[in-house]
C-alpha cells in the first residue's frame, strides 16, 4: 500500500512538466476561443514548430537567445494564422475556420517532418542540466522550471485580464463584437492580441516541453490534445478554469499508469482522458433543441 502511494506521488511529481505545458496550451486555447469563437486545432503545431526552431537556432546563437527567438516566432505564427486563415474564413463559415486551422496543423507538421525528419530528436536544455532524485526516478530542473514558468505566466495573464483596460477590452469584444466596437474598442486588434498571446504561450510551452522530452512532429503536436480536454473541463471560456483543468488532466496522466495492470498499458492515460472528455461533453452539452430556441420568457 505504502509503495503504491509512493508510486502515485512519484508519478504526480513526474507529471508536473506536463501540467505546466498543458496550462500554457489550455490558456492559449481559451484566449483564442474567447476572441475568435474558434477552437484552434493548429495549436499543437504552434507549439511544435517553435520547439524545432529552438532546436535549429540553439546551436548557432546559444540556448537562451534561441528560446527567446523561438517564442517570438510562435507569437508571430499566431498572428499569421489569425490574419491569413481564421479572419479570412470568418465570412465563409465556422466550419471553414475549423478546417482552416486543421490545414495549418497539417501544413506545419508536414513542413517539420520534411525539414527535420520524423525520428525523435532531443533538443538542448533551457535550464541547467541538474536533476533530483524522486523515488526511483530522476526529475530534471528543466521540468520544474517548466512548471514554475507556466504558473507565473498563468498568474500574469489572469492579472492582466482582471486588472487592466486591455483585459477588459478583450473580454468585452469577446462577449459582443459589435457592441464593443461601438464603444471604441477595435475588436480586430483585441483578436490579434489574443492570438499573439496564445502563440507566445504555445511556443513557450512547446520549447520547454520539447527541451525536457523529445521533439517529434506529430507527438509534440498532439501533446496539445490533453490541453483541449483541460480547457473543456474549465468551461472553455474561463481562464482560471483552464488552469484547474490542466491540473486535473495532468494528475490523471500521472495517476493512471499506477493503477495496476490495466493502467500500465501503452495509451491507457489517453483512453482514460478520452472517456473523461466524452463524459464531460455529454454532461455539458446543450440539449439538442433548446440551444436554438429563444430562451422564452
Amino acid at each position, binding site marked *: 500500500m505504502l509503495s503504491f502511494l509512493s508510486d502515485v506521488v512519484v508519478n504526480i511529481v513526474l507529471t508536473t512538466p506536463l501540467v505546466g505545458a498543458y496550462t500554457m496550451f489550455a490558456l492559449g486555447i481559451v484566449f483564442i476561443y474567447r476572441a475568435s469563437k474558434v477552437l484552434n486545432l493548429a495549436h499543437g503545431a504552434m507549439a511544435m514548430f517553435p520547439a524545432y526552431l529552438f532546436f535549429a537556432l540553439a546551436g548557432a546563437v546559444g540556448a537562451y537567445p534561441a528560446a527567446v527567438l523561438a517564442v517570438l516566432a510562435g507569437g508571430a505564427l499566431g498572428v499569421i494564422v489569425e490574419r491569413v486563415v481564421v479572419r479570412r474564413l470568418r465570412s465563409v463559415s465556422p466550419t471553414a475556420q475549423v478546417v482552416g486551422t*486543421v490545414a495549418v496543423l497539417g*501544413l506545419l507538421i508536414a513542413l517539420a517532418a520534411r525539414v527535420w525528419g520524423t525520428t525523435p530528436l532531443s533538443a538542448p536544455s533551457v535550464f541547467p542540466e541538474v536533476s533530483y532524485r524522486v523515488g526511483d526516478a530522476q526529475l530534471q530542473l528543466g521540468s520544474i522550471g517548466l512548471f514554475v514558468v507556466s504558473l507565473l505566466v498563468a498568474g500574469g495573464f489572469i492579472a492582466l485580464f482582471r486588472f487592466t483596460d486591455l483585459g477588459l477590452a478583450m473580454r468585452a469584444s469577446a462577449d459582443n463584437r459589435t457592441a464593443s466596437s461601438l464603444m471604441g474598442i477595435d475588436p480586430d486588434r483585441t483578436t490579434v492580441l489574443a492570438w499573439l498571446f496564445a502563440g507566445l504561450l504555445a511556443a513557450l510551452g512547446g520549447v520547454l516541453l520539447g527541451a525536457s522530452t523529445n521533439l517529434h512532429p506529430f507527438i509534440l503536436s*498532439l501533446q496539445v490534445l490533453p490541453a483541449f480536454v483541460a480547457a473543456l473541463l474549465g468551461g472553455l471560456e474561463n481562464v482560471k478554469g483552464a488552469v484547474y483543468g490542466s491540473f486535473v488532466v495532468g494528475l490523471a496522466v500521472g495517476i493512471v499508469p499506477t493503477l495496476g495492470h490495466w493502467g500500465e498499458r501503452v495509451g*491507457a492515460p489517453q483512453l482514460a482522458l478520452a472517456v473523461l472528455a466524452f463524459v464531460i461533453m455529454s454532461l455539458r*452539452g*446543450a440539449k439538442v*433543441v*433548446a440551444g436554438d430556441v429563444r430562451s422564452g*420568457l
Partner: protein
Amino acid sequence: MKPRTVAVAAGFVLVVAFPWLPFVEPSQVINANLAGEYAIVAISLVILTGWVGQISLAHGAFVGIGAFTTGILARNFGIPFPANLPIVMVVSAGVAALLGVIALRVRGLYLAVATLIFAWMADAWLFTSTWLVGSGGASSIQNKVIGREAAIPSFDFSNKRTFYLVVLATLIATVSIARNLRESKTGRAFFAVRGSEMAAVSLGIDLTRYKLLAFALSGGLAGVAGNLLMTDLRTATPVAFQFTVSLFYLSIVVVGGLTSVGGAIAASVLFAGLNEVFFRVTALNGWLDFVTVGLLLLVLLVYPGGLGALGAAARDQIGRLSGGVSERVRAWRTSRRTPGDVGDEGDSTQATSGAPELAEIEVEPLAEEPGDGLGVFSRFRTLIQDRRVRQPERRVLELPDLETLGTSGIPEPEPLDWREISIDHFKLPKSRAAREPVLNAEHITVQFGGLTAVDDVSLEVREHEIVGLIGPNGAGKTTMFNAIAGLNEPTSGRVQIFGTDATELPVHRRAQMGVGRTFQLIQLFPQLTVFENLLVATHGHNPTGVLRHLLMTPAAVDEERASRLLVHKVIELVGLEEISDQSVTGLPFGLLRQVELARALVTQSPLLMLDEPASGLDNAETDEFAHLLRFLRAETGVTILLIEHDVRMVTSISDYIYVINRGQLLAEGQPASIQRNPTVVAAYLGQSLDSQPKAALAHA
C-alpha cells in the same frame, strides 16, 4: 445513339479497362486502387460532414478499425475477403455510432474536438493494442485466405488488376447508394438536420435516429474502405491510420467541395495522382504531405466550393455554349427519375451543387442550458422514457381537391388564387362547447431555476378554431408555446393533444401526432429550394425505411412519387408555383412566411402552431397572411394556435383569445370582449388608460 451517351459509354469502358491499357504501369494500378479506396472514404465523409453537417476528424481511425478487423477475421477466424466485408462494415458502423452518441449532445466545434480526441485515443491506445493490431505492431493476412484457393476460386484477389475491378465495383455501389440516399426521405432528413435542427424536429424528424444513422453509415463505408485497403495491401501498420491520415481524408473532401460526391471522387483521383507523381519524381520526395495540405488551404481560401463547384460551373458553361443541351439532359433525367410525376422540381443535385458549399454549414457555438445541473442519469432516464411511451395515433388533415376551392364542394371552372377567394361560406359552430377539443394545456407551470416564467396557465384550443395567445414582451407566451410543443418541460401541468396525454413526448413525436408549426425566426432549410423544403415535410407520411432508400426499391419510388404529388398540391393550394424551383435564400420575407406555412401544411397536421407569424411583415403583408390563414381554415378545417405581438392581426382573425401577463393568465374570451377588457388594456399600455394607443387597440 446520342453523342453524349457514346462518350459516357466509351469513358466507362476506358475506366474499366484501365489496368490493361498498354502504357499503364504496375505502380499506376496500385495508385488507381488507392484512388478508389480514398473515394469511398471521401464519400462517407461527404455524407457525414457535407450532408448532415457533423465534422469528423477521425475517419482515418474508422478506416483503421475496418482494416484491422479484416486482419483479425482473416487470421484468427479464416474468414476470407468478400465474406468478411459485411462483418467489418457492421463493426466499424458500430464504433462510429458510439462516437455519434457524443454528437447527440454536442455540436459544431465541440464535435470536431470530440472526434479529434477519439482519433488521438485510437492512435495512442487502440492501434497499439495487440488484440487488435496483432503482435509486432502490424497486421497482415496471408495470400491464401484471400487468394484463389478460398472463397471465390476463380478470382484471385491478390492480383492488383483483378482487385482494381473489385474496388471499382465497390465504388460504383457506394456512389449509387449515396445518390439514392440524396433523393430519398433519409437524405432529406440529413439535410434538414444540417439546415435547422429546430425545424427538423418540428417536422417529426427524430434527431437521435438520423444522427446515429449518419455516423453508422459513414463509419460503415469507411470500414469498407479499410477492408479493401487491407485486402489490397495484405498488411497494415497503425501509421497508415494515424491522425494525419484523417486530416488527409478531410483534405480530399474539402478539395472536392464537401457536399459533392462527384467532387469527392475527382479529388480522390487527383490526390492518388499526386501520389504517383511524387513517387516518380525524386526531387519531390517527402513533399507530398505538404503539397496535399497546401492544396487544402488553397482551396479553402481561394475557392471554397472546391472541385464540385468547379464541375457544376463547367457544366453550366458547356450548357450555355452548346445551346442548352445540358438543360434538356437535365429535364430528361428529372422525368426519368420520377415517372408520372408532375415533374417541375428541377434537378436537385444541380440546384445545390453550384454554390460554395462550405459557406452553408452553420456551426453553432455550444449553448448552455440555464440552470441545468441534472447530470447524466436523469438524461438517460428521459431517453428511456421517450422510447417507452407508445406513439399515439397520427391524425391527418385532409387537403381539399383544388377544383372545389372556395365553394364548399361546388366545382369552379378553374382553380382560383386564394387571394381572390372569399371565405364567407365558412361558419364555425356558434357555441364553443359544440366543438371538439384539439389541445388542452392544463395548469402549466414552467420554472427556470427560481424564476417562474409561466404560472398555472390553462388554455384550450377546439376544432377548426383560430386561437390567439397574446401578451406583452416577457409575458411568458413563448415559454407556454414551447411547453405545448415539447421544447420546454413544464414543471407541472399536463398537455393533451387530440385527447391523448402528450406531456412526456419529445418534440418530434408530438409533431408526428399531427402538430405542425412555424417559427418567429423563419427556420427554412437554406440550401434547399422551396419545393425541396416542402418535400422534407412529407417525412411523417413516408413509411419506408433507410434500407429501401439505399437501394431505391419500387416501394421507395412509389412513396417518393406520392410525396411529390402531395407537395405539388400544397404548392398549388398556397399559390407558390412561380417560386417552387427557387432557392429559399433571397426570397422576400412575406413569401418566406408563406413557404414556412406551406411546409407545415405538407405535414397535414390538423393543428398548426404559429409563432409570431406577423413579425417582420408590413401591414399589407400581414393582412395577406391573415387572409391566407382564414382561407386555409375554411378550406381544410385546420385548427390554428398563434402567439402574436400584432394585436390588430390577432383580434381580426381569432375566434378566441388568451392574454397572459407576467406568466399568469390575465383574461380569455372572444376578441371583442378582450378589446374592451380594462386589465388587458392596462397590461399592454401600462397603467395610464388614456390616449391614442388605447384607441388603436379598440379600433383593431
